[in-house]
């Protein structure tokens, strides 16, 4: 089974990317290599450029400089949907579910890129289309089981508790069957019990499904507990990278978070 590995193959290689908004250098010449099968956390103070970096990886922003190589191929110029087809999925800082649809329907939507039927065939719902739907439903049911959403499958997501909505969002990203999963603050606004559950699911996704994960998170306890590697951003530049223990001991990180004494 794919345990988290720090050495060896690199899934995603970001080299020298920058993103400018007018005069603001949101991300300035950042390079990171994400090892296959790792949980790679990106931390930093507010406005450090974490989300901008993830947005460039998912294709939401195009970098001004630098390149992004995913599984050996340059994806810098690809659109977000093309990246999704190659196996990059993400969740959002603010919940972006379809509130009027139920859990199962939201997950089925995540299967969209894997569905081959066109509109006309889908309307007829016969033969191969029916089989395709059944196959995708089965995959979604596995995710429901994996994330223990069984009793909620027919509930509309708008009415769910916040922690469950976040979990459904994770489920929808998993429905893509991604090789790389970008989680933008999956635990923001959660209570400690919900955080613990979410941390457990992130570890399970990583260990059981072998998915490489990039995590942006402010809860340092969780980050230090579950990450294989951590990169620290401050004002758009990378100031440190290493294992949780290395990062915690790094003077530059301490300075960025706590300020220096003069």
């Amino acid at each position, binding site marked *: 089974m794919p*345990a988290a590995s720090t050495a060896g193959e690199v899934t995603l290689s970001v080299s020298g990317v920058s993103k400018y908004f007018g005069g603001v250098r949101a991300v300035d010449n950042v390079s990171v290599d994400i090892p296959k099968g790792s949980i790679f956390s990106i931390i930093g103070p507010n406005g450090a450029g974490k989300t901008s970096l993830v947005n460039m990886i998912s294709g939401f922003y195009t970098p001004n400089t630098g390149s992004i190589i995913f599984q050996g191929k340059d994806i810098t110029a690809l659109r977000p949907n093309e990246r999704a087809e190659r196996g990059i999925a993400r969740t959002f800082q603010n919940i972006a579910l379809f509130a009027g649809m139920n859990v199962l329907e939201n997950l089925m939507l995540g299967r969209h890129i894997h569905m081959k039927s066109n509109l006309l065939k889908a309307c007829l719902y016969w033969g191969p289309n029916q089989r395709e739907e059944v196959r995708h439903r*089965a995959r979604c*049911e596995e995710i*429901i089981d994996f994330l223990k959403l069984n*009793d909620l499958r027919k509930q509309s997501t708008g009415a769910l508790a916040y922690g469950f909505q976040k979990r459904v969002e994770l489920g929808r990203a998993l429905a893509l069957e991604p090789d790389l999963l970008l989680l933008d603050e999956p635990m923001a606004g959660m209570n400690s019990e919900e955080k613990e559950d979410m941390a457990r699911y992130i570890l*399970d996704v990583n*260990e*059981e499904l072998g998915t490489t994960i990039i995590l942006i998170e402010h809860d340092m306890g969780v980050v230090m507990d579950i990450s294989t590697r951590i990169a620290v951003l401050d004002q758009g530049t990378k100031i440190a990278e290493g294992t949780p223990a290395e990062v915690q001991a790094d003077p530059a990180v301490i300075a960025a978070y706590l300020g220096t004494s003069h």
Partner: protein
Amino acid sequence: MTNADTLGALLLENERTRPTKPAIREKDLGIWRTYDWAEYTQNVRDFAMGLAKRGFGAGDKLCVAGNNRPRLYWAELAAISLGGTAVPVYQDAIATELQYVLNNADVKVIVAEDQEQVDKVLSLRDGLTGLEYLVYDDSRGMAELEDDAAVLSFEEVQADGVEYGRANPTAFADAVAKVKSTDIALMAYTSGTTGNPKGVMLSHGNMVRTCRTFLENEDVRESDDLFSYLPLAWVGEAIYSTTVSLMSGCSCNCPEGPETFRRDGRELGATGFVAAPRSLEMVLSEIQVKANDASGIKRWVFNTFRDVAVDIENRKAEGLPISLGAKLKRAIGEILVYGPIRDQYAFRRARWVYVGGAPLGPDSFRFFRAMGINLKQVYGSTEVSGLVTLQSDEMASPDHVGKPCPGIEVRIDDNGEVLIKSEGVFQGSLKMAGSALATLGSWKAPDS
């Protein structure tokens, strides 16, 4: 009715006489999956042979821990068919309780449902003297235990069993034939009122004959669907679900999990239930809360027709005549209130619902009967295989427990103790000399 007097023989008879009839269903990944008697028996056989290959035999004990899952039932029956004893434990038992039971019973093999149960057992590992290995059903989270020689997957054991069975084609049937009706099939741990839990030993004969008595006094059909939602460790589950299904050929149905069992139960619409008073009380309070939350007119409809039906029940209980007007109102209420309630709470197809284990309040009892649910009382205890008295449809009442079933004698002695003589009286408590009054053929109920 069948003459087989061991559970293994009953299983083989079902394989022979009704191979394609549904034996057990499980809701898994959102879908009900059916196993017929041929598949059911084959699964038991493969697992049994896998156990036999590893040296499990007559007199050995196998523990199952987890929610109602087909594989746990198969594991129990595999051990029982080999002449061994099944020791089901409550899935929410804490580690120390579990350790006491496992050591007290000298359990050799544990079949655990999932990671939660496996972790619990492994945390006790050093303190478990007789345990040889552990088998898990759900492989999630087990990757890190792959190298542990004492932790096996259910598939692994069955695969070994297939191989072993090929080399010894008659081994399973031979083992079943050797089992006597006096052999201990099930060990149900009961807390009693004081001290450590006691391992109540029930023989094949106890279970089969008790179940036969039940089937002679209640309408159970081959086409019936029972709902397996009670804890495996409860004697009621072993008798009224597993044994009844083996003897009548009807199917057991496992819900997806404890969170979904209410919805699954409604989808299934079981044809008969045995329930604890607490779960009926929960249903009742939910109905009341929902009725109070409803709009004015709905609340009025519910209250009016409930009162009509409860009034009729009360008059019936007192032997008073029922007016034509009341009957007419009840007919309207059936369409507006009682039918929909039975449908919503999984009683749509239920021909009988027994409440047992503790008394249910008379008002609650009459409410369910008023809703057209054939609620009756059963009285029994673990030590008498869960059956002493049953109420027939005509005598259903919250005020008494019904008449002793034919073949069961009940006497109250001078001290007010209840003496019970029945084919179901247990074979004694494990490792507790002197507690077995079975020698007299009767058993004293300590507290009831």
